[in-house]
């Protein structure tokens, strides 16, 4: 259990101590929220969509959690580079605990950021449908965070240097973001695209968050959560397995 705590605490400290990292990971969602929210708001309203900030906020929260979670998972490459990974790999603790603590740390940080983005969006005019639903929204945030930290950790376990990260960003992370329905409703898109979107975990995350935050969703929220949880467990398993096989 010590190992889980140590790895969790360390992830937290690393995040909180790096001002540049905090500002950097905060600036992007805010920029999206302000630029898109106010920029496309009038068009969206004119097209009969209603209040765009309401629609956009859950999507931006999901996006910011996904980016930070994947990033903290992939962060392991630096531990490999700077040697700290070795120190943990030879410690007399099960590697499953090391990797789980690390994932939990990343997920905690990403959830915290999601909550802050939510609060800031309320300053920008977002109104949640009900205060009582907020704890459920936070729970969904944590699920999204855990899922993508595990995803990032799996990638970090097999990638030996940072050069591959650009590829991952362009071919996996950005498509997942655009297909998640975070920015625009997917209803009117070609069927083919909607099938692809159905494979995107963030789609279910954003949908579940809309359900709790604005009371509107595509799917049954229970089904969303079940799918998110299933994918999270699968990725936790895969991430731990890949981590346990690391050789230096």
């Amino acid at each position, binding site marked *: 259990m*010590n190992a889980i705590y140590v790895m969790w*605490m360390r992830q937290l400290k690393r995040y909180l*101590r790096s001002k540049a990292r905090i500002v950097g990971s905060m600036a992007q969602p805010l920029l999206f929220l302000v630029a898109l929210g106010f920029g496309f708001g009038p068009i969206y309203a004119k097209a009969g969509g209603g209040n765009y900030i309401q629609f956009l906020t859950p999507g931006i929260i999901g996006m910011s959690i996904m980016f930070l979670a994947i990033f903290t998972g992939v962060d392991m490459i630096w531990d490999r580079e700077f040697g*700290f990974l*070795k120190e943990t790999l*030879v410690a007399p603790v099960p590697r499953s605990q090391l990797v789980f603590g690390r994932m939990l740390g990343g997920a905690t940080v990403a959830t915290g950021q999601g909550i802050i983005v939510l609060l800031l969006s309320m300053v920008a005019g977002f109104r949640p449908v009900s205060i009582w639903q907020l704890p459920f929204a936070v729970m969904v945030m944590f699920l999204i965070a855990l899922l993508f930290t595990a995803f990032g950790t799996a990638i970090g376990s097999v990638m030996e240097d940072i050069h591959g990260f650009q590829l991952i960003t362009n071919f996996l992370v950005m498509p997942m973001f655009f297909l998640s329905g975070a920015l625009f409703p997917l209803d009117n898109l070609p069927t083919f695209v909607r099938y692809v979107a159905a494979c995107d975990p963030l789609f279910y995350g954003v949908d579940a968050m809309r359900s709790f935050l604005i009371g509107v969703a595509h799917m049954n929220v229970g089904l969303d959560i079940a799918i998110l949880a299933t994918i999270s467990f699968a990725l936790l398993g895969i991430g731990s397995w890949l981590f346990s096989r690391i*050789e*230096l």
Partner: protein
Amino acid sequence: MTIIIQVDRLLKTYGDFKAVNEISFNVQKGEIFGFLGPNGAGKTTTIKMLTTLTRPTAGKVTLDGHDPAVNPNEARHSFGIVFQDQSLDDELTAWENMEYHGMLYAVPKPLRHQRIEELLKFVELWDRKNDFVKTFSGGMKRRLEIARGLLHHPTILFLDEPTLGLDPQTRNHIWNYVCRLSKEEGMTIFFTTHYMQEAEDNADRIAIMDHGVIVAQDTVEKLMQNTQTENLEAAFLKLTGNELREENSNHTDNMRMRRRAWTGRR
């Protein structure tokens, strides 16, 4: 005498290259065992296999009764290690690096804090304990690595060039501490170094490795006797043949050697 490290025809290949080529040796419990060899000989690769970081291509290792390739978790309970290259967390303080290490190795809190204070004072970093490691000089980082490695008093302690880049005073200081630990607690020490005097002064027994194979293993006296040399450095050079190679080598040989030294030093 009981054997605590048993290595039997251990092999590690990278592609066609045999980094470690079927080496065998034993280390006795409580022994201070020096593992010497020129750059790129395969010392670090051997230590990686002994400490569960890399799986051997072939061969068998027994470490305090466990095979690191088969039961890595059990094997990890038996040893501690100071790595050749950096393994600290730069974004944590010196104290946090020590504390987290102690927690990972399940050293009980009162003992942990007592030893952290003792060790940080010993390596003269106590007044810098709350500073981030990234603000430390190379030598300070090295001292912290050593202090951290000494925190949990394992059965076997691996030291891969522990004193690399440290001044002579500090090196002496550290070796005194290590020898005392070995005597008082019966701790087995397995170390590599390029400072021959260190090996001569401290090792009970020495193995010399070159190009992936062990070319000699014995006590310092026997090694000197067998090579008819005055000190370990001369014996080492005679056994690994670098002296001869240097004298007769042409330009391309020199280039090749330098490249090997360069890539091996990573």
